[in-house]
């Protein structure tokens, strides 16, 4: 789910950037460092333009200036029970991996409807019901998040497609 979220970040700037363009340097730094990063709970998708920069403070010993930046950003946080779309990144015997943006999800064998079987002899290997549903690398798929876990800068999910309207997306 996407949220508009207010955040704070301390940015250090090298003395060579001090000058009339200092604000744009801070902005650039902010975008480079924060956009697309993952805190473990949510991913910062997009930083909005309006942001506040505090008074700069020179750090003793280094000459760097430190600015505290307040900004608003669109963040994405997955929840258990949420339905998300993703792209299959790898297919193995025990299930398949789905990339949902910054979230890596795994759909295990027990989370796949029983009529969809693993076919190892196909190239590339795939999960298929021998009809229209084929899950192979690159397939777009809709899954429901069953479990979530986060590490410092990564999020992992267990997904299921054993419910109605889940599974490969027909384009």
């Amino acid at each position, binding site marked *: 789910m996407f949220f508009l979220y207010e955040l704070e970040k301390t940015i250090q700037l090298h003395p060579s950037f001090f000058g009339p363009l200092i604000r744009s340097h801070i902005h650039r730094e902010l975008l480079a460092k924060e956009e697309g990063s993952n805190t473990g709970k949510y991913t910062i998708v997009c930083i909005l333009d309006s942001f506040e920069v505090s008074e700069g403070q020179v750090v003793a010993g280094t000459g760097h200036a430190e600015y505290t930046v307040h900004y608003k950003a669109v963040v994405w946080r997955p929840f258990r029970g949420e339905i998300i779309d993703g792209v299959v990144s790898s297919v193995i015997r*025990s299930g398949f991996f789905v990339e949902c943006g910054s979230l890596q999800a*795994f759909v*295990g064998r027990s*989370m796949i409807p029983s009529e969809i079987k693993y076919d190892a002899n196909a190239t590339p290997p795939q999960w298929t019901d021998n009809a229209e549903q084929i899950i192979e690398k690159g397939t777009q798929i809709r899954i429901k998040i069953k*479990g979530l876990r986060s590490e410092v800068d990564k999020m*992992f999910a267990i997904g299921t497609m054993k419910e109605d309207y889940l599974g490969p997306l027909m384009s």
Partner: protein
Amino acid sequence: MLVESPTGLHYPITVVELAKKPEDDIQRGAPLFSYYYETTVTEGDKYGDEKEVKKKFPAGFESSKAGTLTRWFIQNGTVIQRAGVKLVEIDEPCTHETQFAGMCADCGKDMTEEDYMTDGRDVDRATVNMTHDNTSLLVSKKEALLAEEDAKRRLLGVKKLSLIVDLDQTVIHTTCERTIAEWQNDPNNPNYDAVKEVRSFQLADDRLANVAANWYYCKLRPGLKEFLDKVSTMYELHIYTMATRAYAQAIAKIIDPDRVYFGDRILSRDENGTDQVKTLHRLFPVNTDMVLVIDDRGDIWHWSDNLVKVRAYNFFLGAGDINASFLPKQVDLITDTAQTKAAELTKDVEKKSEDSNGEAQVVSIAAKPPESILAPVTNGVLTDLEKQLLTMSGGDNPDLLERQTKEQEKVIISQQTERPLLQKQLALEQAEETAEAEEDVDNADAPAPEQHKHKSLLHDDDDELIYIEACLRRVHRAFFDEYQKKRTAHQGGRIAELRGEKSPKKRAPDDLAVVPDIKTIMPRMKRAVLQGVSIVFSGIVPLGMDVQSSDIALWAKSFGAQVTTDITKQTTHVVANPSRKTTKVKRAANHPQIKIVTTEWLLQCFSKWERADEQPYLIQVDPAEHGAHGGSPEISAFDDLDEGPLLSAEDDGAISGEEDEDELKSPVNVDISEETWQSLGDEFQEFMDESDDDDQGTGSDTDSVNSENSVQTSSTTRSKKKRKRGTGSVDGSEADDSDASVSSSTGSKLQRKKKRVLERVTSLTNVVSADKSSGLPSPETTGPDEGQENGLGGEEDDDDGDAELEAELLAELERDDDE
């Protein structure tokens, strides 16, 4: 799940009442049964008296698992004496067999949660990682077994085995040197033909931030396409490389653009977990019966029985394996003859220009371990402890990956800045020019394969893949023959016919119990190759290295050969460096039954899996050289043999008889015509100057002690003489040498030394025929290593005008002393 009595209770405990019946649903934390335990406590009464009292304390036992109770192992009143007693069985709804990043893939529960009731961590239920491209997915042993059996059935169904393929230096060779691009754009370059099919690529997520837009140049081993085509019909192919994932994928795209051979079965060092070894258990955790490996390095596989070691593909000379910089350095002893010659040519120039090159510097290995600035050296910095730490650390260790990246960065930067290939080509051209000027003897008999206006440095003449394919086919056939036989007989069949016909019958559903083991089939086939061959290495393994554990020795042993450090009665082959005549070679030359061959012969055997004909690889050893020591070498050599099993009189006779017979056939001794003589003369001259003097003294020494009681002596001597006459070798040497031996046996050490010095001076100052210098008696040095060292010293002398001068001075001095 079986619940056992936990540690940390006050045993013995007595069960009072079971709270649940079979078939009851149990929540986590629900009381299972109540019990009491007894203990002594100190009680005080109101008068202040204290006494020890035994008391019963009631307590409850909570379930650490949720599920359905299936049965009790205890009943009311049971006394539990210790931890580890079976209490109750609870059928869990999910046993968390597959876990992804700490979550159960079947129920989505977080496996890392722990509380006061946790008696065994759920994460420990699934510990086996068997996925190629992901380290987060773990399965339990049971699951792994099931998965493997599944895979086996499937493979047996399509009559395939699994083959793990290494990338670098096995099927491809990659360098980062931009010289390649320049050569590619220059049709006039001597290397143009060789490099025109080199593929280049960049890695998008190259983490080598300091190296701007790094290009990789990848040369496919000749015949790779056909190889993959044919092999993929017999094997399911996997990639297992020590390179990064991005690199492996880029290579896979080149060698397998349609992803038909490898699919997604790519395992890189990002997922490997350790950077020191490759292990089959990473991919096949339970059973490796149907797995083969092809790799150019045996050590990182610990010489597994599943391994088919192939000859390293070294196309870009000196580039080595850019992705193995963090691996223990591999001492490369052997290359193609063409490469060797190229290296030989460049050797001298390199010495002067202090050129840094890696493994291609074959020739100089024996002389001096190559001190290259290239990556392999940096490995030496790693201490054992560090290595171990590295090995133990997991796959996601950022420090480890960081370190590997850094190592690799070094290699790449050095390749980019030093451009060893370019240097080598220049050196080669330079060497050629000097050679032309001086009419270098070495150069004259070296066949010049590609004579453009300059010789090209790179040679595209590797044919290893053809042989590998043939071997893999044989193994495949042997495996399925045996499988078929076992299945029909349904009891352990006899040894499979190695070259049986494929059964035309359609395969019925298999029986996993009778699947033969590739770990017994393949070694059996391999061992038949060099069965009964006993090898001594000479001038091949660098000094200071344990011969038995050197790569080539282990490789030879895997083919059933015996490797000994010294020449014994059993020795059949001496594998020697053709450019150096060591003690062992000379001793072996006295035994016609011992074939002296180059490493190329051994490599041919390894490649083709059959005993190659020794004839083309024989090293011609001058019979006059070893015969020229007054009949002493034979005896001395036999003395050496005596160090092994003792020779009885009959044995001796038998052997000498054999010798005589062999003599007629043996090419070492017989087929040396006058022309060969002439052409080889100069070369021998050189070698004799280097090491002969030292080596042969041993012979004369021992001779003087042993010759009287040796019955054998006369017959062998006679045979030697006969041989000499046959070859028409220089005879003056004989008298000369017998003199020398006599004098050396009687004379003191000092005298001998002096004489040696004298001789050396003369041999260096006057260019004379071989016999003169070969007759050098020697000091007390013995042993093969000694010989090599002396060889070194000799070389230096040759190079060095100073040493010559010094020797002369010394000789003068001693002469003065005498007078």
